[in-house]
């Protein structure tokens, strides 16, 4: 008999197939979630999980935290759909929550310098392969959290500078300058690696 985990995994595979093979009416999914359709909620989670966790990871550089943040953001976004305008895309709303929580996590971590349970952050980065070059990961690691936030939103999630400024309530010029500094710093870091 399949275990619960295997059943869950099989359901996940079915979900991925559906997402890839059929156009998804996201607004209809959101309406279904509001009506109590849990399967629709699960489909939204599957559609947006990778970007959510990747963005959280790029900001925190902590695999465990990125999972927690992505999960909390998903549940928060789905739980707050009553306040969401279904005519608008779901992703920016979710990504805003993810980024907020990731930045909050970084802030809390900086306040917890004296916390005694030893900090595990970045340990995972050094032992796991993330499918990208080590020099790129090192260059990202060298950025500050706010620069990583900009890089994640611009180059991973694909938002324009104006959209980032609106989502993060920052002046557009600030977004542009942070992005430029981040790219410059990454270029320097990656040249130094070679």
């Amino acid at each position, binding site marked *: 008999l399949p275990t619960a*985990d295997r059943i*869950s*995994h099989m*359901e*996940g595979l079915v979900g991925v197939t559906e997402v890839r093979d059929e156009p998804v009416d996201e607004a209809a999914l959101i309406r279904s979630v509001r009506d109590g359709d*849990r399967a629709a*909620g*699960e489909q939204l*989670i*599957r559609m947006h*999980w990778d970007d959510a*966790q*990747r963005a959280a*990871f*790029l900001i925190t550089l902590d*695999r*465990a935290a*990125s*999972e927690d943040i992505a*999960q*909390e953001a*998903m*549940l*928060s976004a*789905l*739980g707050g759909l009553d306040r969401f305008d279904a005519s608008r895309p779901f992703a920016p709303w979710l990504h*805003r*929550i993810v*980024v*907020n929580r990731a*930045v909050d996590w970084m802030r*809390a*971590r*900086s*306040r*917890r310098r*004296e*916390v*005694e*349970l030893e*900090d*595990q952050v970045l340990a*995972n980065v050094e032992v*796991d*392969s*993330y*499918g*990208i070059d080590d020099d*790129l990961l090192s260059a990202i690691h060298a950025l500050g*959290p*706010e620069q990583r936030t900009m890089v994640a939103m611009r*180059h*991973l999630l*694909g938002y324009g500078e104006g959209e980032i400024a609106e*989502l*993060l309530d920052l002046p557009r010029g600030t977004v542009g300058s942070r992005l430029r500094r981040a*790219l410059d710093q*990454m*270029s320097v870091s*990656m040249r130094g690696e070679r």
Partner: protein
Amino acid sequence: MNENELALRLSRLEIPGRGAALDRCLGAYRESATVHERPPKRLRFVPRRQFRLALALTAAAGIVALAFTPPGRAVADWVVDLVGVGEPPTVAPEPPAGGRWNAAPPQPTVIASGLTARGEPFEWVFQGASKGVCFSLELPAGRFPGEGGGGCSEQIPRASADYPILAYGTSSSGAGVEVNGILAPEVKSVELSYPVDGETQTIDAVMGRISSELLRKAGGNPNNPRDVFIAFLPKGVRAEEVTATAYDSEGDVVGAATWPDLDDLPGAP
């Protein structure tokens, strides 16, 4: 490296364990949908000067401290011997699990106990895990094991003079709105205020402690024990309207926490 190349390379980012993480998220969603739980929300810290203003406004409106009476059941209906802080819980909690947590010392230990908003006994339990520590809310008279929920963390936040109250809130089917958190040493009591039918009501939090001994067994620094608090609010209270206020031994306000605003977006960390 140009921007297109960067975007392409970032798109190849693969988080190890992605499938299991997604499954855990789906499981959490199914569970939350089944028991109609709301997701955990974190309280935002309020700088002291902002809180003084908020307190002045609230006082002007005329707060009347009311003892909370749980709906449909008087607290006195429960005849219980509450488990004391530092003792094992009445019912053994679920061991830390869920993929990346394994049980580790210390054994489950009560760090605070009292009555929920419904007047049922609760035990707030601390236990060790392989990568940190876990907390759970045990309801010995609850309808099913694990009803109160719980979670694990790699670190225990530490309150400070600047942030004397670190508060977190969750809603659960079993215990209603639960607010708990970590306190700076100078905090001696915590009061929660919330509106009901246009009037502000208050309730005192139950105080507890993560002792030096527990921290030592968890591999932490025993020199910094944590004072903690936990409180339960009646169903129908909107968590966003709750304020947790910390007082020192003189009864002076030293800090407060309120619910976050999603529009509060990051500036410079």
